């Protein structure tokens, strides 16, 4: 079952995972190129991305920066995983590290604690933003609601596959 494949405590086929990560890296590079391409394509100014205003200029720089960062991250991901695939000794070491149950538990707990912290930070943000901006308050409330929904969805999914 695909749920078990995704969330189960299966051992990791590291070569397959490296190849998948290289594909993800290529995806990052495409997304980065798309972000940069969008800035060039919309340089003339559109209703959605008016580059003639200050906001437009900021957004153009923002998207360029985002695109370059994504492309760099994608390239780094590809180079790193290609290195693993080319060196069997390094690949074996990586396989042990990624399959290690303690490392996996630490990884899971890191995500869990980060999740709790995120919830708390969002809640504090909501409390404070009420005095500053209603827009920010509504946005933060939407984020916390979506976050709670995702949490619930994962609880249901994990209950089914464990």
């Amino acid at each position, binding site marked *: 079952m695909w749920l078990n494949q995704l969330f189960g405590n299966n051992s990791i086929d590291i070569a397959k995972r490296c190849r998948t990560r290289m594909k993800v890296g290529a995806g990052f590079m495409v997304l980065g190129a798309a972000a940069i391409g969008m800035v060039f394509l919309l340089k003339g100014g559109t209703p959605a991305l008016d580059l003639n205003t200050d906001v437009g200029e900021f957004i153009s720089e923002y998207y360029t920066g985002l695109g370059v960062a994504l492309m760099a991250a994608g390239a780094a991901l590809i180079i790193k995983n290609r290195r693993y695939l080319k060196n069997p000794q390094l690949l074996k070491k990586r396989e042990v590290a990624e399959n*290690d149950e303690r490392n996996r538990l630490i990884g899971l707990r890191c995500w869990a604690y980060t999740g709790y912290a995120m919830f708390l930070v969002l809640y504090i943000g909501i409390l404070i933003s009420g005095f500053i901006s209603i827009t920010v308050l509504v946005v933060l409330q939407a984020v916390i609601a979506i976050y709670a929904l995702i949490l619930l969805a994962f609880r249901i999914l994990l209950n089914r596959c464990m």
Partner: protein
Amino acid sequence: MKNRIQELRKELKIRQEDLADAVGVTRQTIISLENGKYNASLQLAYKIARYFGKQIEDIFLFEEG
């Protein structure tokens, strides 16, 4: 949960690295197990017991409470 990994390892003059390689974990995991900071999963406990040629309960000592 206490365990006798360090005791058995030293008795047989096995390095932490070799034990880690044999059971497919990192050396850090063996260190954490020996220090009692981490409790092994049933799967890892079984692999360690099999490596030493013993039963799980001979290596991992369950303490009630």
